[in-house]
């Protein structure tokens, strides 16, 4: 075994050991809920991105707290509500406030520019 593989193994081992430490009291189903919740709760420090994708200490704290709440028998809705009361509505990534389909903007811009260009460049037949 060369050195590279050895380090890969060590890293993998550390990751496994850590994840075990954090959420070992949760059942399979509860872990799925934990992932769902932390995917849909925004990291309050980073403005964009969810708790599960963030490395900020506050995100880890929130994820731990969600795990505790799940263990204490809170439902998903109750946890969302609690987080909303604590940090405000923007903490929910699917709060429904910004439903405006932002991905349509380039398309709309393209259509407007085509219209603008064609109206000014294509000469009308005399």
């Amino acid at each position: 075994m060369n050195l590279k593989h050895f380090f890969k193994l060590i890293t993998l081992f550390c990751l496994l050991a850590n994840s075990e430490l954090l959420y070992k009291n949760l059942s399979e189903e509860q872990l799925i809920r934990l992932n769902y919740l932390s995917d849909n709760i925004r990291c309050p420090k980073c403005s964009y991105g969810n708790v599960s994708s963030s490395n900020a200490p506050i995100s880890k704290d929130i994820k731990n707290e969600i795990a505790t709440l799940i263990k204490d028998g809170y439902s998903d809705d109750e946890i969302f509500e609690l987080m909303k009361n604590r940090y405000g509505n923007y903490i929910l990534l699917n709060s429904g406030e910004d439903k405006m389909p932002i991905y349509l903007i380039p398309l709309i811009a393209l259509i407007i520019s085509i219209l603008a260009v064609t109206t000014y460049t294509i000469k009308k037949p005399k």
Partner: protein
Amino acid sequence: MLPSIQELVDLNGDIINERSLSNGKVLLNVWASWCITCLVEHPFLSKLSKGEDLIIIGINYKDDLSKAKNYLDENGNPYKFSIFDYKGNYALKLGVTGAPETFLVIDGKIVKHRIGEINQKVWNDEFKAFF
């Protein structure tokens, strides 16, 4: 509302009566010795503590006890007392995202939450109206 949590202790290890947080106008300020911006706003807090009709209480956030005490010895102590929140549990329940942060609590109700430094301008713009 303020979260309730058992066994809040101050930097001396004395248990804090929760009522002291919800009596009158209280400015809860999250600070730590590792926090540079806290040091920047510290003189302003000291100034505040002498003036307005207001109690300033600190939340010492994820800090080392001896470093926290040193910090207050070196820079002065504008706080009536500071909650020693070593793991950040109390702060987490309050909705703190880091330090410095400041809450204005009037009779147990949070009326203002400021993330980041407070200075004279921020005070005039956002806090003054409550006095």
